[in-house]
């Protein structure tokens, strides 16, 4: 599997994502934000950072980039798309994922290792989180629908929801399950030397369509 990693002016974690994709797949390349061509990749990562400075609202400008048009089209065709942190914010702004990311309840940027629980399997993952606007929010009826559809992919474990996300949600998918947004950083958990390798599981599951199997409105499976 060849991954493409979008690069906006102001992206910060694009090289980390590139490296993680190289470890996970068969190769990876950067895709410049002005490119409408995804260059034949099999999956896309919209990385963390502060695209275009994020002075207006996180992800508000990046969603209009030519590369995001290409990502929207590819996502509609079923390509795996992973939005991490700022990438999650961009995918929400672009309407590819439901909900929004608001400022952390403590109103401070926070960088720390968090425990996530994978919905369905109950698997626990230790992955770093680092953001100032990571509080997941969606209206109650949307949340009910997401849960019924099995679109909640990851939740913060008890005591690890430091940003105040509703229902402890850390990551959600689209209905089809091929687009995943995650606030913590799986690309920073691919090597024991720098922390953990739990993040590779996220790339792996998205790459093989494991989140898609949940989108049937029934109780989530593993």
């Amino acid at each position, binding site marked *: 599997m060849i991954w493409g990693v979008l690069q906006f002016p102001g992206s910060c974690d694009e090289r*980390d994502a590139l490296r993680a994709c190289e470890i996970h797949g068969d190769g990876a390349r950067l895709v410049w934000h002005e490119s409408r061509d995804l260059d034949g990749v099999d999956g896309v990562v919209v990385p963390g950072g502060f695209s275009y400075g994020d002075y207006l609202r996180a992800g508000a400008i990046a969603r209009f980039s030519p590369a995001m048009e290409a990502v929207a089209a590819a996502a509609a065709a079923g390509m795996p798309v992973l939005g991490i942190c700022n990438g999650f914010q961009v995918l929400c702004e672009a309407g590819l994922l439901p909900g929004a990311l608001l400022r952390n309840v403590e109103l401070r940027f926070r960088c720390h290792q968090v425990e996530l629980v994978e919905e369905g399997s109950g698997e626990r993952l230790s992955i770093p989180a680092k953001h100032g606007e990571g509080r997941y929010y969606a209206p109650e009826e949307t949340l009910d629908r997401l849960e019924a559809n099995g679109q909640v992919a990851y939740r913060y474990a008890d005591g690890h929801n430091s940003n105040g996300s509703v229902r402890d949600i850390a990551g959600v998918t689209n209905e089809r399950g091929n687009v995943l947004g995650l606030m913590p950083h799986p690309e920073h958990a691919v090597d024991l030397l720098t922390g953990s390798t739990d993040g590779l599981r996220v790339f792996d599951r998205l790459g093989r369509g494991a989140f898609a199997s949940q989108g049937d409105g029934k109780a989530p499976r593993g």
Partner: protein
Amino acid sequence: MTVGTPKYRELGLTDSEYELIVEKLGREPNDVELAMFSLLWSEHCAYKHSRKLLRRLPTEGERVVMGPGENAGAVAVGGDYAVAFKVESHNHPSAVEPFQGAATGVGGILRDVFAIGARPIAILDSLRFGELDSVRSRHLLDGAVRGIGHYGNSIGVATVGGEIYFEEPYEHNCLVNAMCIGFAKTADMVRAAAAGVGNSVVLMGASTGRDGIGGASVLASAELGEGDEAKRPTVQIGDPFEESKLMECCLELLEKGLLVSLQDLGAAGLTSSAGEMASAGGVGIDIDVARVPLREADMEPFEIMVSESQERMLAVVEPDRVAEVRAICEKWQTGSAEIGTVTEGGLIRILRDGEVVGEMPVEALVDGCPLYDLDPAEPDGWIYGNRQTLAAGATPEQELLALLSAPSIASKRWAFEQYDSIVGSRTVRRPEQADAAVLRLPEAGNAIAVSIDGNGRRVACDPYEGTVEAVLECAQNLACVGAEPLGLTNCLNFGNPEKPAGAWQLDRAVSGLADACNALGVPVVGGNVSLYNEGPDGPIYPTPVVAMVGELPDPARVAGVAFVREGNAIGLVGPFEPSLAGSELAKQRGELRAGLPRSDVTSVAEACEVVRAAVRAGKLASAHDVSDGGLAVAIAESAIAGAVGCEVNVEHLRERGAQPEAALFGEGPGGFLVSGERAALEELGATLLGEVGGERVEIGAGDRSLAVSLAEASEAWRSLAAQAEGDGA
């Protein structure tokens, strides 16, 4: 401006300096020239009270790639790679407006590093504030931490370490020193010297506005006093997004070999960068201010020349490559303008639409400032205050908990969690996991360790010995992660050098720095000086902040601070001779006075080597240098970090002349607290103190023996958040 005061005095020049300028020009300077001279002849740019002293420092070494005089120093780290690093102060701007002051401090140090073609990979910060029970100090701390996080997080460079001290003398004059580490292919690095007559001078990045005008002379070279709010407009505003684009753009230009030289615009803006580039290259430069992209159309030539607008770089480019350079700037959506030319003859000429509005010999402007000898005199005893915060008759338990919760000693997690410490995927040890930050360099096949230190209180007690200790502490921190020192940089934060006591502190500290570096064989590859750090109540503690970079072969074999395994032996390595002089305990008892015991640098260096070798061989489970709060605090820190207790006895230290109290809480260089298999510790020649285990920290010390629960110790050590937010003070 006060009526009757000559303009040059308002700009910070003395009468004799002004006369010298007139003599060098052969006439009175006009406003443009006067503005430029006043900035480049300021303390901040000319180092006029420190340059002579700095000649004492050793700057040579076989690993040195770039030494003092460049935008940043650099050392070879193996393969074809080099690590660049520099630390710089942004004290006075931060005291006026902490968020922007600290943010632009980070922005400035990043530019220094990518200016030489190195990609910034890490930031560290050394901060000093007044005591946390002061509203002002909490405001400054909060603003500075947010500002550092804002800039570093947004630009995507990991903030991997640093230190924060809280002491009364920093109440009105906080210190914000930022350090950046860069990584480069040695062949891609570039110097700042302009070269090639006829080459174009290209200004890249943000447009130029009125922000920061006069910052270098008004803010950086005068004591702070009343009415500082009026100076707020002279503090620059940072834009990390602009810098992110500029950084990527410059690194791409350098990688493609499109630039002859590159220089950042910092203090004194275009004046200093153009002047220094011309001076270093032995050439002249013409700058046409009409070609500088402006934020406000009606700016005067002098304003354009001295503006400290952030996120700008100046490059020298061969004329036939200018189009290519500008195309890459466009790709990164960063501004570029051809504003001048490299000329023959050594003149810096300022033009507006072709008309000359200022003309000065580069040599006079950049190197002509007179250098002053200091007039040092040792003050009579302790010149700072004493404030008792610990009740007389406190038990050893109360003393330990008071030390652990002292803001200078307590965990700085509250601060460092506001920083992205992992972006870049190089961070092998996150803040507080080990005594030094460790960054892997897969390209070079090894890793580097970085430590930044400088306990101003101890330097105030004894400027020479305190500075030696700062260097030793860095070396010890590196040894704890198995790293060997490669080079050192520093930022000398001192009071007014024109006062005899301030001059004496500076003089003695530089001697201590030189002697310690010589003894350890570590070259000084750069530095920064910040003088006139005084508030209405007097000078700050003299604060030489020392930053050391070392190399280690295998990042997987880095010892941490934490005790790891129940049953492991705990030992003390090194020539540690604890004394209460200048200690945190002496501070809390209100018993600070002048003087520190002398340390034996050679035997500390030998101990560093022993610990380094043991860490590299994987023989130690933990290694932690004994620092603020003494051995008892070091023991408690290792226990808290490992979430496991211990039972030790420190009475052996009586043999080193330390009474039980000093054995517990006395400070001094040369001590390593290590844990591991008993046989391994015996092999090192460690003094065995006890064992890891249980849920209490129990320390035998004769009639001062103590025992606290791990939970109590941990709660005290983790109390900074409450104190910083003002709910615990």
